[in-house]
C-alpha cells in the first residue's frame, strides 16, 4: 500500500526527538490556552501562529496539530467543569458533562472526554489516511439541497430533547430560533432584529448563547436557591473510569467518528451539528435514557469522539482540496501560505514529507494528549471543591472574560446577561435549556441552505429534491416518522397470521 509506506516515512519524521518536542509543546500550549474562556481552537491557533515562526515548516505544522487537538480538548474541560463552553464544538459536552462534575464524577467525565477525543481523533486520522482522496471527491458533490435534507433530519431529532413537557420544549426551541434570526440575512444582507445596531449584525454567537443559558443562567438560578445549610463540598470521587463506565462508553467512542468524520469533511459541516446528532443518537441507544440530562456518561463520550473525528475530517478537505471547512482550517491554510505552501490537489506530490509527517504527528499528538490529560483529570476535578461563593463568582468572572475577549465590546456583556436572565426564567418555569441552544445552531444553518438551494434552482421547489442524496435522506425521514405506524401494521399482520 502506497499511503502506508508514506505514513511509515511520516512517522520517521514525526518521531525525531526535536519534532516530538514540538508536538509535546503544541499539545501543552493548546490545552492550556483552550482551557481559557472565550478562546476556541481557531483563536488558539491564530494566537500561537507567531510562536512557530522560528521553526522549519515540518516542525511548525507538527506543533500546530498539537495546538489544534490540545485546544479542542481544553475547550471541553471548561465546558464540563464550569459549564462555560469556549467554542461551539464543546457546547454539547456541557449538557451531560457538567451534571456529572456536579455529582462528583468530574474526573470520569473528563476521562470519558479525553478517551473520546483520543478514539475519535485516532479513527478519524486513520480514515484520513485511507479515504482521503475518495472522501474529498465525494465531499464536493454534497450541495445545498443535501445539507437542507440533513437539517430537516436534525430538526426531527430535536423532538427527542424537548423534555417531559412538549409544549415547554417547543417554546424553548422557538426562543432559540428567534435568537438565531438576529443579524444580517445571509442571502440578501437585510437586517433582521438588529434594531439598527452594527454589533448585532453578525448575529449572536452560539457560544454566547450557550454560556449565557448554561453558565450565567445556572449561576443566577443557584443564587436564588443556594443551599446555605449543608456546606459539604463536591466529592472528587474515583479518578479513573470503572468497568461499568467503560462498558457504557466504548460503543459511543466508536460510534462518534462515524457521525463526526463525514461532517468534518464536507464544506459547511463543522462540529456543532455532528456533536448534537451524536448526542441524540446516544440518547436513543442508551439503556440509561433516564440519566440523560442528569449526567449520562454516554452523552459526553459520543459527542467528544465525534468532535475530534470531525476535526480529522476537516483536514481531509483542507489537505487534498485546499478547502477550509472550519475557522481552524482557514487559519491553518493561512499558516501554510505563510510558509509558501499551498494546500490543494498538488500538496501530496509536492510536499510528501511535510504532509505525512503532519499526519503521523496527529497520531503522536493524540497519544501525548491522552497521556497528559488522563492523570490531570482528577486534578482538574478538584477545582470544583473551592467554596461555593468563589466557584460561582469565578464562573461569572470567566464567562464575562470570554465574552469580552472575543470582540472587546461591552455590548456583548449586556447580551450575555440578558440571555443569562432568560436562562434563569427558563429554569424557574421548567423550560428546558437545550432546545434553545439547538435552535440557535440549527435555525440559521437550515435557513441558509434552504434559501441557497432555492436560489440555485432559480426559485423552483424541485431544487430541494433533485439529488440522490437528498432523496435518500427524505426517505429515511419518512421511515423514521412512519415507524410507529409501520410497526403496528406489521404486528397486526403477524397477529392476523397467528390467528389463522
Amino acid at each position, binding site marked *: 500500500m502506497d499511503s502506508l509506506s508514506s505514513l511509515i516515512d511520516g512517522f520517521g519524521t514525526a518521531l525525531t526527538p526535536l519534532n516530538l518536542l514540538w508536538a509535546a509543546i503544541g499539545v501543552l500550549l493548546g490545552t492550556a490556552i483552550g482551557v481559557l474562556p472565550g478562546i476556541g481552537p481557531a483563536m488558539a491557533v491564530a*494566537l500561537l501562529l507567531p510562536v512557530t515562526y522560528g521553526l522549519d515548516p515540518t516542525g511548525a505544522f507538527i506543533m500546530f496539530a498539537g495546538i489544534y487537538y490540545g485546544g479542542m480538548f481544553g475547550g471541553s474541560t471548561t465546558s464540563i467543569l464550569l459549564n462555560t463552553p469556549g467554542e461551539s464544538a464543546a457546547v454539547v459536552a456541557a449538557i451531560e458533562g457538567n451534571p456529572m462534575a*456536579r*455529582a462528583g464524577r468530574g474526573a470520569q467525565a473528563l476521562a470519558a472526554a479525553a478517551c473520546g477525543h483520543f478514539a475519535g481523533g485516532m479513527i478519524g486520522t486513520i480514515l484520513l489516511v485511507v479515504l482521503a482522496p475518495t472522501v474529498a471527491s465525494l465531499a464536493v458533490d454534497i450541495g445545498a439541497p443535501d445539507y437542507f435534507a440533513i437539517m430537516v433530519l436534525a430538526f426531527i431529532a430535536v423532538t427527542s430533547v424537548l423534555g417531559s413537557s412538549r409544549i415547554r420544549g417547543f417554546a424553548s426551541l422557538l426562543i432559540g430560533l428567534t435568537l438565531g434570526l438576529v443579524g444580517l440575512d445571509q442571502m440578501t444582507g437585510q437586517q433582521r432584529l438588529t434594531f439598527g445596531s452594527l454589533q448585532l449584525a453578525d448575529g449572536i454567537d452560539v457560544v454566547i448563547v450557550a454560556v449565557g443559558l448554561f453558565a450565567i443562567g445556572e449561576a443566577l438560578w443557584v443564587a436564588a436557591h*443556594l443551599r446555605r445549610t449543608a456546606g459539604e463540598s463536591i466529592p472528587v470521587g474515583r479518578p479513573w473510569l470503572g468497568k461499568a463506565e467503560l462498558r457504557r462508553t466504548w460503543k459511543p467512542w466508536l460510534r462518534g467518528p462515524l457521525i463526526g468524520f463525514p461532517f468534518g469533511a464536507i464544506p459547511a459541516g463543522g462540529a456543532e451539528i455532528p456533536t448534537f446528532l451524536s448526542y441524540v443518537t446516544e440518547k436513543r441507544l442508551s439503556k440509561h435514557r433516564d440519566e440523560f440530562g442528569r449526567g449520562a456518561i454516554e452523552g459526553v463520550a459520543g459527542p467528544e469522539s465525534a468532535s475530534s473525528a470531525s476535526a480529522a475530517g476537516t483536514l481531509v478537505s483542507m489537505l487534498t482540496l485546499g478547502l477550509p471547512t472550519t475557522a481552524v482550517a482557514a487559519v491553518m491554510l493561512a499558516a501554510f501560505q505563510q510558509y509558501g505552501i499551498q494546500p490543494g490537489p498538488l500538496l501530496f506530490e509536492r510536499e510528501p514529507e511535510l504532509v505525512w509527517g503532519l499526519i503521523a504527528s496527529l497520531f503522536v499528538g493524540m497519544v501525548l494528549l491522552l497521556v497528559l490529560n488522563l492523570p490531570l483529570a482528577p486534578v482538574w476535578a478538584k477545582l470544583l471543591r473551592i467554596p461555593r461563593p468563589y466557584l460561582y463568582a469565578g464562573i461569572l468572572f470567566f464567562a464575562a472574560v470570554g465574552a*469580552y475577549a472575543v470582540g472587546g465590546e461591552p455590548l456583548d456583556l449586556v447580551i450575555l446577561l440578558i440571555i443569562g436572565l432568560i436562562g*434563569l426564567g427558563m429554569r424557574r418555569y421548567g423550560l428546558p435549556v437545550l432546545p434553545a441552544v439547538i435552535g440557535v445552531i440549527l435555525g440559521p444553518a437550515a435557513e441558509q441552505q434552504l434559501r441557497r438551494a*432555492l*436560489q440555485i434552482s432559480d426559485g423552483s421547489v424541485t431544487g430541494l429534491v433533485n439529488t440522490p442524496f437528498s432523496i435518500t435522506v427524505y426517505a429515511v425521514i419518512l421511515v423514521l416518522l412512519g415507524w410507529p405506524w409501520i410497526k403496528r401494521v406489521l404486528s397486526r399482520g403477524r397477529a392476523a397470521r397467528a390467528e389463522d
Partner: protein
Amino acid sequence: MSTTGTDPTAPPRDSGLRALLRGRSELGVCLILLVLGVLVLTDAITMDTDITQRGPIGPTTVPIVVGVLLLVVAVLLAVDVLRGGRGEAEGGEDIDLTEPGDWRTVALLAGVFLANAVLIGPLGFPISGALLFWGSAYALGSRNLTRDPLIAAVLSLVTYVVFNNLLGVPLPGGPLMGVL
C-alpha cells in the same frame, strides 16, 4: 401534556390568593412569548424587501413562520397553565427548592454583572473584573473582607496579564495606562 408535579417552591400551606398568584406567574412566560412573537412579526413585516428574490422563500419567510409559531405556542402554553399544568423548576446539587426564591441576591448579581459591562471601558478590565468577582462572591454570601478583595484583585490582574501580555488579546488596562 405536561408535568403536573406539585411545585416544590410553594410553601406547604398557601392561602387561596397566593396560590392564584403563583398560578398566574407562569402566564408571564406566555406573555413574554407573545411579545416576542409580535416583535419578530413586526420586524419581518416592516422589512424593506425590494431585493431580487428567487422562489417562495425570502428574507421575511422564516421570521414570519417563527413569529406565528411563537404566538401559537404562547396561547397553547397559556391553555396548559390554566388547566393546571406547571413547569417543573429545575433542581440540582447546589439548589434547595424548599427555600423561597432569594431574588435579592439575583438582582445583586445581575447588577454587579451590568456594572462590569459599564465600567470595563472607563476603569479598565482589572478593576471592573475584580469588582465583578468580589461583588459576586459577596452577593453569594462570602464575607471575608480581607481575603476576598485580594483574591479578586490577583485573579483579575493575572487574567489581564495572560490575555493582554502573553496572548496579545487586548483588554483595557485602566486609567493609569500611559501615565506611569
